[in-house]
């Protein structure tokens, strides 16, 4: 629900409450005024009656419509009191509340008890009138609120929506030019835009330096490794080294290679995380997979692994070719590396689902940890434990579904593109 809709609903609700309370208050105020007028009216009639009694005293009892005069046997003190009563209305033919005045007046030494009642406006007429006018006003208000809401979102909130669009399209790796927000004549929007402008620039420059740092860290590591590597080779080329010494140097060399690969893999993971692969094109998945398997053919044969593949010809996806190649390389490499001598590999690409299964030692870690960095089943193995983490990262990058299961001696990784 957007901002304007929320505010409108809140406003409609609050105004409903206000109208209800206002209605009750109006009704009470009106009733008070009507009552007051009614009392005045009855008092005036009472005065009139007094004057009439002066001229023509009543002998015993006199009664007209809404009026009754009783002559009292003895002298009584004057008093006036109002009360509510219910009287049959002669036109409406139903009981209606009336205001009643009971008074005692002494005229020419004779006390009369006078009772008067009357009605000017019935309360339900007032109520009906009030309800009708309030409902009409409320409907007009609703209409006005909807129109204002519509105008607000399309005119007043326009700069805000433009800003939102700009933020939505903001990319860390995007063009280097600054993000420019529209000027608006609303102070708050300008403050927001100013803040966003500063923030996006800050984020970009921070990101840039972080990126440079992780890349540089990787490069800076490779240079000393290259020096060590070259010196070791010079050393090995010497004439008088024993077999054992040569073997020790070989171990150092392979450790250097691992360190270098590790640093490269970490730099790669950072790059994927930083979304630096945006060179999207149509990738012929079937063709690429066949090509990859061909490249690995020798390794598969050298390990006497039986290969079983079924690839449909038509699988195509939109992605960065480099990443997809990397993903397939890592998957196939993984299936070969963790396989038995003389094991099996099954590759199945069917439409948008890729399944790679291989025989191999059962995992010592839970299957769901397989895609985490540095998680490897055999801690002493020479693999880095980053291959599948990279695969997972690429799948996350493109929202591909990836899963692992171990069934019937086969490790199976399936990816749904």
């Amino acid at each position: 629900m957007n901002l304007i809709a929320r505010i409108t609903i809140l406003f409609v609700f609050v105004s409903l409450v206000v109208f209800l309370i206002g209605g009750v208050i109006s009704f009470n105020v009106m009733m008070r005024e009507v009552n007051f007028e009614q009392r005045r009216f009855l008092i005036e009639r009472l005065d009139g009656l007094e004057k009439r009694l002066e001229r023509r005293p009543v002998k015993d009892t006199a009664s007209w419509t809404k009026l009754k005069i009783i002559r009292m046997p003895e002298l009584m003190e004057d008093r006036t009191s109002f009360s509510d009563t219910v009287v049959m209305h002669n036109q409406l033919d139903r009981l209606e509340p009336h205001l009643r005045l009971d008074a005692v007046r002494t005229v020419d030494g004779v006390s009369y008890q006078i009772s008067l009642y009357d009605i000017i406006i019935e309360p339900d007429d007032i109520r009906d009138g009030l309800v009708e006018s309030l409902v009409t006003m409320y409907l007009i208000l609703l209409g006005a609120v909807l129109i204002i809401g519509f105008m607000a979102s399309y005119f007043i909130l326009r700069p805000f929506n433009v800003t939102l669009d700009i933020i939505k399209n903001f990319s860390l790796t995007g063009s280097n030019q600054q993000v420019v927000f529209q000027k608006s004549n609303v102070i708050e929007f300008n403050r927001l835009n100013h803040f966003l402008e500063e923030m996006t620039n800050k984020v970009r420059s921070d990101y840039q330096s972080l990126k440079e740092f992780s890349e540089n860290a990787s490069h800076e590591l490779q240079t000393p490794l290259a020096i060590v590597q070259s010196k070791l080779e010079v050393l090995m080329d010497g004439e008088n080294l024993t077999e054992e010494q040569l073997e020790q140097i070989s171990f150092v060399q392979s450790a250097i290679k691992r360190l270098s690969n590790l640093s490269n893999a970490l730099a790669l993971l950072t790059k994927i995380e930083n979304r630096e692969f945006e060179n999207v094109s149509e990738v012929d998945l079937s063709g690429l997979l066949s090509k990859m398997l061909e490249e690995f053919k020798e390794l598969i044969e050298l390990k006497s692994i039986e290969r079983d593949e079924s690839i449909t010809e038509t699988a195509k996806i939109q992605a960065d070719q480099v990443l997809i190649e990397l993903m397939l390389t890592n998957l196939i490499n993984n299936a070969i590396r963790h396989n038995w001598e003389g094991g099996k590999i099954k590759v199945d690409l069917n439409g948008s689902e890729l399944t790679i299964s291989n025989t191999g030692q059962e995992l010592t870690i839970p299957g769901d940890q397989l895609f985490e960095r540095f998680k490897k089943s055999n801690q002493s193995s020479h693999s880095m434990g980053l291959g599948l983490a990279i695969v997972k990262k690429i799948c996350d990058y493109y929202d591909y579904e990836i899963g692992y299961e171990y069934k019937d001696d086969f490790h199976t990784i399936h990816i749904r593109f």
Partner: protein
Amino acid sequence: MKLLLVEDQEELASSIRNYFSKEGDVCEVADSFAKATEKLYAFSYDVLLLDLMLPDGDGLSLLRVIKENWTDMGVVIISAKNALNDKLKGLELGADDYLPKPFHLAELNARANAVYRRRKQDGKRTLSFNEIELNLDNHEVMVNDKSIELTRKEYELLHYFVVNQNRLLTKQAIAEHLWGDYMDTMDSFDFVYQHIKNLRKKIMEAGGKDYLKTVYGAGYKMKDE
């Protein structure tokens, strides 16, 4: 082969220079782009070994300048950046090869040689070691003028040995040369052994001598005793 190495890491530069000097190649070193251009204007080189990260400029823009002025010189980039786009950009700008650091000196030597021979226009493009002769154009191998049948990997292996003759080639360097980074398991060493065994057999069957010597604990060496 005359090489110019543009590399600001003194320790690495000296190792590379010594390696090539032992081969009988001339390898000169420049530690900055300014010195490199100075040398390029004064002398002529067959192959330039270029580090992309120099103190006085971005390697890729330097490469552009070099390719504009010295078109017939081969360029091998040696870079600490294993970034794919750098590699693509380098090759696009006219570099012949791209070798990420750290590398085996034997690998650098093989790459520089390949670039050098590919660019050499005159005469037959062959490499030979005593009675063994490799034709670089059609990958044909002759032993005592008799053609022998090698698989692609065996040819690559033999080529690697001939280019780096009299040098110790570690099993790791050979595995990386043949299979690149795919192969970093210990298994690969057995595969290297199998390939060498097959190659040795094929050469000896054609009447060649066994030049592939095993250096225990380290690797192999091609030499004539």
